[in-house]
């Protein structure tokens, strides 16, 4: 079903791009590469910390850096999570969202130095915050651990670096819009709003008592769903039809997916507080919103898997590097939505509460979905922007298999390990120590997966940096104009 719109191009399919580097892309190159390179450096740092944290978590007594104050688990785990989210996730989506909306809106990107300045400030503030965490200066609230003076700086840096997609949307010459544009605009607008309000009520003017925990849960769900989730959904909506060269199945449902996603996501926060000393009505709102979130999940599943299922789409996706990563991510998102709905309910939630299960759900969303989609996007965008090819096909294979296996292993270890220990914990006659012992094999799996992810990321970094260095040779400047 190809409905033609006024501009004569089928809906459910992004416009055909010119294969040559456009003027816009020449302008984009500088800020894009700054965001991308810093993202990958943070990703490597986070993966090293991830290995340390996994080993420490497995054995508090015999783990690495025992009795070393700077590298206690409480520091390493917090630094790892923040570096992954604010270092890798944000920088990478700054780059990708900017590129996506410039492409879709034919945006003439001027004043790129503002984005570059924003990126520099963002990364400096991040460095300072992580050093402070290791120095023992953290706040105690997950993903808001940076000392509070970092917050306003990050917010300003976000406005300089991450607000461009909205400008691109406002300035676009064509009237028609595409699903990716809505999701990116939503993510770029929802995050700074959420971040400022959460900073205010959690760190600067703390709310009283448990309201701090409520504001914090609202912040975390918004960050994960409305920044990571929405940004990555935008990328899937773009790359699937773009690379396969066909329209999205059931594209007319996409606006419903967009609005229901944004409508319900921000209410799901309290579902992380079931059984906690917060009002019952609040917990119920979280449960209901979590269940309602299944609506956009089902629609995106129809859109993505439907598109992939027709005319040998799956095998074509498997043979294309970009789509191999992107479809992996699309499957992970569907899985995340189903788990999120089922384990939001009180009964199942009581079993897995306080175990590694929630970490597994987060890993499913931010790694198996968002990060894999980001990798796939990099394979599409970077060759265009640098004008050169990926140096090593072998490293691409290492990258895919190491990250795919590592993602599956870590998610399974956290989810199944969490569920099993939760079932044992429900029986009060089994002591806490016994449960911890029973989970040790899952901790081994977790450590192995952390090493796999590190290997994959090193392969990716070598390949990407090799390519960027090759292309920055002086001869290539302006070659495509």
């Amino acid at each position, binding site marked *: 079903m190809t409905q033609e719109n006024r501009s004569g191009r089928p809906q459910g399919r992004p416009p055909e791009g010119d294969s040559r580097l456009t003027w816009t892309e020449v302008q984009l190159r500088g800020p894009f590469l700054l965001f991308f390179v810093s993202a990958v450096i943070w990703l490597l740092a986070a993966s090293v910390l991830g290995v340390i944290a996994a080993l420490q978590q497995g054995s508090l007594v015999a783990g690495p850096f025992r009795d070393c104050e700077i590298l*206690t688990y409480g520091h390493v*785990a917090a630094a790892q999570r923040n570096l992954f989210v604010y270092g890798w996730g944000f920088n990478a989506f700054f780059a990708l969202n900017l590129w996506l909306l410039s492409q879709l809106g034919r945006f003439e990107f001027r004043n790129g130095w503002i984005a570059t300045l924003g990126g520099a400030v963002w990364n400096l503030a991040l460095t300072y915050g992580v050093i402070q965490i290791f120095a023992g*200066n953290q706040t105690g609230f997950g993903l808001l651990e940076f000392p509070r003076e970092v917050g306003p700086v990050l917010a300003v840096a976000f406005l300089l670096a991450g607000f461009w997609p909205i400008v691109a*949307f406002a300035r676009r010459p064509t009237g028609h819009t595409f699903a990716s544009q809505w999701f990116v605009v939503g993510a770029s607008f929802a995050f700074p709003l959420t971040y400022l309000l959460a900073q205010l009520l959690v760190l600067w003017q703390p*709310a009283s008592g448990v*309201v701090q925990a409520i504001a914090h849960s609202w912040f975390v769900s918004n960050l994960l769903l409305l920044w990571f989730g929405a940004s990555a959904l935008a990328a899937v909506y773009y790359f699937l039809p773009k690379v396969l060269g066909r329209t999205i199945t059931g594209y007319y449902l996409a606006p419903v997916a967009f609005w229901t996603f944004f409508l319900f996501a921000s209410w799901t926060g309290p579902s992380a507080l079931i059984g906690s000393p917060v009002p019952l009505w609040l917990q119920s*709102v979280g449960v209901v919103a979590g269940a309602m979130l299944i609506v956009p999940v089902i629609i995106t599943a129809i859109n993505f898997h439907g598109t992939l299922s027709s005319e040998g789409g799956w095998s074509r996706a498997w043979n294309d590097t970009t789509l191999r990563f992107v479809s992996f991510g699309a499957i992970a998102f569907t899985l995340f939505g189903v788990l999120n709905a089922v384990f939001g309910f009180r009964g199942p939630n009581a079993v897995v509460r306080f175990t590694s299960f929630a970490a597994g759900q987060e890993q499913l969303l931010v790694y198996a979905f968002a990060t894999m989609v980001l990798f796939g996007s990099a394979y599409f965008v970077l060759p265009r922007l640098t004008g050169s090819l990926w140096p090593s096909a072998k490293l691409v294979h290492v990258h895919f298999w190491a990250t795919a296996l590592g993602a599956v292993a870590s998610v399974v270890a956290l989810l199944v390990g969490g569920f099993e220990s939760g079932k044992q914990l429900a029986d009060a006659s089994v002591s806490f120590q016994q449960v911890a012992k029973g989970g040790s094999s899952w901790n081994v799996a977790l450590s192995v997966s952390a090493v796999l992810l590190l290997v994959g990321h090193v392969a990716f970094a070598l390949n990407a940096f090799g390519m960027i260095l090759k292309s920055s040779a002086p001869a290539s400047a302006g070659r495509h104009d």
Partner: protein
Amino acid sequence: MKNLNTLLAGIFLAVALPFGALVISSQVQLGSLGRAPAEEGGPLFPSREPGLAIQGRAVYVSLGCVSCHTQQVRPTGQGSDIARGYGARPSVARDYSQQKLVLLGDRRIGPDLANYGARAKTLDAVHAAIQHNGQYVFLYTGVKNDVASERAVALAAYLQSLRQDYSSPEAKLKK
């Protein structure tokens, strides 16, 4: 979907309404909670935090203890917290009303600490627990690591101050 203003207005509402309904309204509902007697004329609970405990909480936060320890007891039927001896009754919002910084936590790599002060038998037991079999010995000096540093003293005082073993208007202890 073509109009940026409509799009931004919709997204603003999608974020701001939950903020108002979830966060602001619970501040209205819970913000005025304070110390209260379980029965008329009874003693006021929760107790005010001792100064040393407030310093100890700074140590607790600084070391990231919250990444492995929760401070909340769920009601019967929601897990085995009470049967496990983490508390005599479920935690209620009032228990946290005297705390400037509330560290509910969301992961139990170690046991829950909401009621640790009531559970710990002696001060020596608290210090032994802080050392975690040699993981946090840097908080101690002396040949046998038996001399607590100021930070360890404060942390122990904080842990001992964590108790929810009193009756509260919302959750009475069973007699």
